[in-house]
């Protein structure tokens, strides 16, 4: 009797249910998408038809089990999730998605509901639906869902059921340890329902704010700050994480700006366009107004060799590490950033400008080999009288950090007519004009400060060496000579067999410190602190069969340099060498005839005099 009655009751329930469903769904429109199942059940006592489960990467693979022992309302089974302890080698959390291979039509429901309980009171990290291991286009979820040790029903509202015509993501959940401890929770009776007792609150874009953005053709903005909330059957609002696809974005003027289904706004023309959005027909709070000035005039593209540049902000070069382009220095800074990109050209856009700092202190920049600071500026508004623009460079001193008592800074000020509006201004500031800088070896900040300039764009901020600054030590080896060995009598060169017995540093009482150093792996003669320096050959050498004296020399700091050829007598003759070497190694071929009256049949010594630090290589006679 008893079992029979139970079966009868269940059959009765089924019959009534089927009748109820069919008696309500007599609208012909409902049959249009009949190819997709409208099955609301996800997991009642077991997996519903077509349902699959995959755990997420990094999750404990077998954290999910169908549990026949614990179930809501003493039904056949529930879903159990075993959350691991912290540092569990098999995974750091429990999580995965339940999805169907063929989508379902869920447009007739307004919520996903389920019952849950846990071994300890816990907060589920995230739980929702719409995660299909594909585009997750219509994903919706609740973060921080609090569950307890008694069975309770939970509701996840569907932001817009009309979107879920072919939904595969039925249910997903992800939960890590609570305070480092694992535990278990159960979920049961997972199904989509038409509750009717949920009141959608006004959705938001841009966090509900009306944002105004100046733009140009090609500028892209993203509508973010998307939020949906629902007043639940208990009168309390519940926030739901939503994907952009639930929002219908519109532009008031497609000739100015277009917006796609992901909320990406493209500026396509001049004028004003307002981007707004709806969710399920409800106007969202917040908007983006694009004020487009039309075609953007790009800053001039830098042409300097990357080897001569330390880039801070430029798309032409690979920038050095920069901490920030706007430090938002409290409390006096008003400057905001509204940076934009036009067709791949990133531009800094400082609005409500009074001053702003760019910091590049990790590590600091050694600009001692640089000659100029380059900044391209664009002031979009008319320039009032009295406007000025100041550029300050701050060096953080040997400690390389802000403060510490060794920082120095210097400022250069620009006014009209250097400053113009509505056209790019290329400031190429000699670093020498930052006279108060004790050093340029640990630069950490560029600070812009202005008067009567409310807004400007900046681009191509870099330190550059225009050639006037020579690195004190050559960064490359002297060029390797390619003359046939038969045409060469070499004194000092890695490329040839040198004359035997030469003394490269005879003691003539000179102050010069002479050493041999490796420059890029090439043995190089270095005269430090030159006053004069001899170079003695083993004996009288006949170079009358050669045509030139060849030298490669390099000096960043010499202001005078002569080379002498000496024959027995002594008979000597100098030839001046151009210093400093502004273009790297200087290779010279001096006609031996110009050393007359030196006897070319009997050359015994060479000599250099002048000042500074000299690097010397490939000292040879050649034809």
């Amino acid at each position, binding site marked *: 009797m008893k079992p029979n009655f139970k079966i009868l009751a269940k059959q009765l329930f089924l019959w009534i*249910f089927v009748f109820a469903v069919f008696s309500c769904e007599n609208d012909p429109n409902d049959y249009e998408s009949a190819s997709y199942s409208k099955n609301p059940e996800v997991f009642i006592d077991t997996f519903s038809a077509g349902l699959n489960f995959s755990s997420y990467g990094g999750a404990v693979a077998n954290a999910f089990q169908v549990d026949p022992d614990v179930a809501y309302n003493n039904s056949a089974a529930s879903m159990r999730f075993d959350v691991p302890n912290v540092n569990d080698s098999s995974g750091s959390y429990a999580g995965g998605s339940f999805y169907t291979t063929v989508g379902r039509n869920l447009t007739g429901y307004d919520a996903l509901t389920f019952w849950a309980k846990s071994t300890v009171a816990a907060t589920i990290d995230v739980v929702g639906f719409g995660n299909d291991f594909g585009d997750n286009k219509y994903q919706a979820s609740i973060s921080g869902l609090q569950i307890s040790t008694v069975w309770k029903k939970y509701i996840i509202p569907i932001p817009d059921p009309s979107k879920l015509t072919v939904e595969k993501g039925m249910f997903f959940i992800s939960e890590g340890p609570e305070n480092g401890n694992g535990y278990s929770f159960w979920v049961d009776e997972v199904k989509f329902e038409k509750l009717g*007792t949920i*009141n959608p609150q006004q959705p938001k874009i841009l966090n509900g704010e009306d944002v105004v953005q100046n733009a140009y053709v090609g500028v892209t903005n993203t509508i973010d700050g998307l939020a949906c909330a629902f*007043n639940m059957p208990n*009168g309390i609002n519940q926030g739901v994480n939503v994907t952009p696809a639930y929002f219908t974005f519109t532009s008031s003027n497609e000739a100015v700006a277009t917006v796609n289904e992901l909320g990406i706004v493209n500026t396509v023309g001049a004028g004003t366009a307002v981007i707004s959005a709806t969710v399920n027909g409800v106007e969202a709070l917040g908007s983006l107004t694009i004020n487009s000035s039309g075609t953007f005039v790009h800053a001039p593209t830098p042409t300097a060799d990357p080897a001569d540049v330390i880039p801070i902000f430029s798309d032409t070069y690979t920038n050095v590490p920069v901490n920030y382009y706007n430090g938002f220095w409290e409390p006096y800074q008003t400057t905001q950033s509204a940076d934009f990109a036009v067709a791949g050209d990133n531009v800094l856009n400082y609005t409500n400008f009074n001053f702003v700092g760019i910091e590049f202190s990790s590590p600091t920049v050694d600009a001692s080999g640089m000659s100029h600071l380059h900044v391209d500026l664009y002031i979009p508004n008319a320039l009032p009288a009295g406007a000025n623009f100041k550029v300050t460079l701050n060096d953080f001193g040997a400690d390389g950090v802000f403060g510490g008592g060794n920082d120095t800074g210097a400022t250069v000020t620009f006014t009209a007519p250097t400053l113009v509006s509505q056209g790019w201004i290329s400031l190429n500031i000699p670093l020498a004009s930052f006279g108060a800088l004790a050093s340029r070896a640990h630069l950490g900040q560029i600070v812009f400060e202005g008067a009567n300039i409310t807004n400007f764009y900046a681009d191509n901020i870099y330190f550059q060496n225009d050639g006037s600054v020579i690195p004190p030590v050559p960064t490359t080896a002297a060029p390797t000579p390619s003359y046939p060995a038969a045409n060469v009598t070499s004194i000092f060169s890695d490329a040839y067999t040198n004359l035997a017995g030469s003394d490269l540093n005879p003691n003539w009482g000179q102050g010069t410190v002479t050493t041999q150093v490796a420059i890029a792996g090439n043995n190089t003669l270095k005269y430090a602190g030159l006053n004069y320096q001899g170079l003695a050959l083993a004996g009288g050498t006949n170079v009358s069969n050669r045509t030139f004296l060849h030298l490669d020399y390099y000096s960043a700091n010499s202001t005078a340099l002569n080379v002498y050829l000496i024959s027995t007598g002594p008979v000597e003759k100098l030839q001046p060498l151009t210093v400093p070497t502004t273009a790297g190694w200087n290779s010279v071929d001096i006609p031996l005839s110009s050393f007359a009256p030196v006897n070319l049949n009997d050359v015994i010594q060479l000599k250099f005099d002048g000042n500074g630090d000299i690097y010397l290589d490939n000292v040879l006679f050649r034809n």
Partner: protein
Amino acid sequence: MKYFSRHTYNGGLAIALLSAISISLSGCDEDDKQSVSKHNWQLAWSDDFDGTAGILPDASKWGFDLGNNGGWGNAELENYTDDPENVSLDGDGHLVITAIQNGNSFTSARVNTKGKFSQAYGRVEARLKMPYGPGIWPAFWMLGANNAEVGWPQCGEIDIMELKGQAPNVINGTVHGPGYSAGGAISSSYALQNSRFDLDYHVFAVEWTENQIDFFVDDYLYKRVSKSDVPGEWVYDHPFFLILNVAVGGNYVGFPTAQTPFPQKMTIDYVKVYQ
């Protein structure tokens, strides 16, 4: 004994299922209606709340209860005002009463027809859209116009609609009289199974004769209070005046929480009184 108790339990379950299904059927089946005897009601008094947005309701019809009055006998929190931000026409033919939170204090509004209109018997109805949220307590109700002379509950009170914002799908209809007031009042509730009273307008009404008071939601009779039902004196044979208000907090509804959304609005499409 055990067998029978299980049997009874299962039978009860089956009946509960049947009744749940029959409700969903009634939602689909337009023919399933009550047959309530129809009266030939004549419109005696009404307000459609037509007028310019932002102005107060017609002063010839409506007055205001102001302040907190010691919690209005219910430990209510709100301070009633006649500020248009709490009570004004919306320009689309509605009166809107708005409960506003200012930190830990709340303002709202309570309008009444005291001294301007009162009537004994008839049909009294309003088309309303409710506010919601824990501790929000909107009401459409009537008090005996002799309340100043005889006091409450001797004057009688007919609550055509009260709602607790933490259960936005349930309303209550209640009568208070001597010997059966406050917690002892005669009350009945009506719940929407698949909706709630803030999603759409609903018509709340009583049909009041010398022998009975019938309570309706959308013309569905959910409670009849007959003269023989009241455990004390029947005090509903004299004129009553109308009141519409949104209370915040109090003994009846409980108190708002940090999760109660504010502001909250009760939107009144019309009030009509028939003779």
